[in-house]
């Protein structure tokens, strides 16, 4: 039953992966709602302008104003994700042998529902503080979904808790915590209240920059650790570590682009381009950059969670080699890829 290749487990994994993959666009759409300040574009909830959510005319939705399009779309996609979360729970309940994981699936469903209710309460009370909390917990629910996918993966079953000292695991957990903190600070920047004093906002921005530096340093440190030949058992952490590196660099670039797209810069006379740059109020590409920064922030959280999971649960080296030989086909984990040597690949091509 608990064999790593049990197809019933693969089903749980598939369902969890599907929900997670669907949640990411939901994060984007939610981010667009914030970017376009569209939270109150539809004044009622759970209905839409008096219609049942699913019966609101498609033409009125698609051809209506953009903020209404985004807000209603966010609600629709959220209910789809909710439905898939129910499916996940059913599948997990029937197929998953680890009781705690089934519980986590139900917790995930509960979190999705709570998230939906929070969104509804935000509309009914027209409360921007709740919008911010909803915006913070969204990526956390996304992280929970991806955690279920990780825990139901084949690799997780092959692995066992790491024994002995685990410096890298600690850095990964720290990174996770700081990334979540960074999400909170970022959410304050995006959901700032008009009553906030400029100096308070300024200190938030400085905190955000400071934490971005911390995150960058942590990720660089991790990148060095996983390449360190003295810690050869860290090699299988390279995939998440590399992903983190790419994401952090992208995120920092997006962060600066977000600033320029929203506020231009105070140093405009440095270059003709900056001097002539005009902020585009609610421009399309600008809002994609800003929303992309928010969405990539949640990918960073998920990725550090991924690294932490791998760091705390190791696949014994021999076992992973054996296993990857046994089922090379649909193994997407780095343990499998590792057994290819670049030379052998190029030989094969020739």
């Amino acid at each position, binding site marked *: 039953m608990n064999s790593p290749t049990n197809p019933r487990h693969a089903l749980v994994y598939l369902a969890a992966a599907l929900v997670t993959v669907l949640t990411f666009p939901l994060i984007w759409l939610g981010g667009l709602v914030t970017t376009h300040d569209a939270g109150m574009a539809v004044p009622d909830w759970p209905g839409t302008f008096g219609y049942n959510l699913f019966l609101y005319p498609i033409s009125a939705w698609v051809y209506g104003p953009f903020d209404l399009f985004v807000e209603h779309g966010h609600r629709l996609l959220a209910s789809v994700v909710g439905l898939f979360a129910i499916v996940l729970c059913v599948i997990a309940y029937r197929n998953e042998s680890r009781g705690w994981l089934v519980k986590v699936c139900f917790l995930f469903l509960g979190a999705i529902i709570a998230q939906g209710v929070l969104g509804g309460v935000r509309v009914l009370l027209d409360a921007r503080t709740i919008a911010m909390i909803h915006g913070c917990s969204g990526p*956390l629910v996304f992280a929970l979904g991806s955690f279920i996918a990780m825990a139901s993966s084949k690799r997780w079953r092959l692995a066992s808790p790491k024994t002995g000292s685990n410096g890298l695991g600690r850095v990964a957990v720290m990174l996770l915590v700081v990334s979540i903190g960074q999400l909170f600070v970022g959410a304050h920047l995006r959901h700032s209240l008009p009553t906030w004093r400029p100096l308070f906002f300024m200190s938030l921005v400085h905190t955000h920059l400071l934490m971005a530096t911390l995150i960058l340093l942590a990720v660089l440190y991790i990148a060095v650790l996983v390449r360190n030949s003295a810690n050869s058992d860290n090699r299988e952490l390279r995939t998440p570590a590399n992903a983190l590196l790419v994401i952090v660099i992208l995120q920092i670039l997006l962060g600066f682009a977000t600033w320029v797209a929203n506020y231009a810069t*105070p140093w405009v006379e440095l270059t003709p381009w900056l001097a002539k740059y005009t902020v585009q109020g609610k421009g399309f590409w600008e809002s994609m950059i800003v929303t992309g920064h928010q969405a990539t922030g949640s990918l960073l959280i998920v990725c550090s969670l991924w690294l932490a999971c791998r760091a705390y649960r190791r696949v014994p080296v021999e076992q992973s080699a054996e296993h990857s030989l046994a089922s090379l086909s649909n193994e997407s984990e780095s343990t499998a890829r590792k057994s290819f040597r670049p030379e052998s690949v190029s030989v094969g091509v020739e």
Partner: protein
Amino acid sequence: MFSKQIPPLNSFFLLLLALWASAFFSGCTPQEASFRPNELHVASLSQDSTDQQVSELAKTASNHVEELFGTPDSPKWPSEIADIVDMVKVKRSAGPVGRDKSKVEYGLFRKHCVQCHGTTGDGQGPAAALLAPYPRDFRRGSFKFKSTPIGKKPTHSDLVRTLEKGLPGTGMPAFGTLNHSVEFAEDIDALAHYVRYLSVRGEVERRVISAIVNQENAAEQAKIIASKVAESWAMADSFSVKPPRLITTWVPEDQTAAIERGKAIFLSELTACSKCHGKLGDGNGTSQDYDEWTKDWTIRAGIDPNKKAEWKPMKRFGALKPVLDSARNLTLGAFRGGETREDVYLRIVLGIEGSPMPAIARKENDNPGITEEGIRDLVEYVYSLSNPVTSGAAPSNEKGAEHEQSN
């Protein structure tokens, strides 16, 4: 079992729970928005007052003004004064962001502007301290880029132009991008009305504060002041200057000659352009100064904006660090008041209100000054700094043709 398997998980759940709980204890009910009393103005007019007195006086003035103009959520317009705003549009711009049951959008100002300009239009939105120049404080009633002389209000179309095109090189966005949505053309119009509303409200507040400081009867004065301020806006159109049509396709030799003459005027003592903008027009002049919004609470209140110890105490009333309003580097060509020669003409002829940039001295009767032709040459010179002409040969013609197209 649970926590042994997955160490970060427990704290994760706790976090989710805490977030959820905090949603319900964080006072979720929306607060009634209010205009922020102008404490900085009170403090700069009455230096010896205690903080308590400042805040009380500011509150009193604010209350008088509220009687006339209402609150950010329910604005009103006194019937006794000139009818210069469309209250339907003002109401649509005011209030919290969102649509009503019939899909009409409200709260345009809080959606698009409040982050920088603040609910009160005091230029004290959350992001203000990180921008240079700071967002406009509408309450002074001064605007920089307009078709009317210094001291006069901008016209409605001046404000609309700023909103559509934005101000390059500042945080002020261009909102013309949303023009593809049918409704947004109306939104800009509505927002321009709201800027007027906020500006009148704020200027009345400032003058009521002066009246109180001068021991006048504020309640009586408020209405008189309000009608004076409204009248000044009503007059704006009559002061609007129409620029002449300027040459865009030049005969190369004529253009070079005009630029040479313009350069001489730029460097002359009479215009002093180069004192501020530098001999090369690159902004490296010797004379650098603060804008009027800063001078109001510094120099005019006996505070030296260069001395941190002197201006710092004003921070508690909302003052932001004084920043020089430096003369522009004209070689970069980011004209905030518009990029055509006609726009540059208006800036030179009218000056830039609130900034150190003066209106040019015109030659009239016996007054020394620059003639109309001289001004046109100067415009051509300033324009050429960022749109260089390659002298003589064919490329210059092409360049000229290109410009005409883009204009």
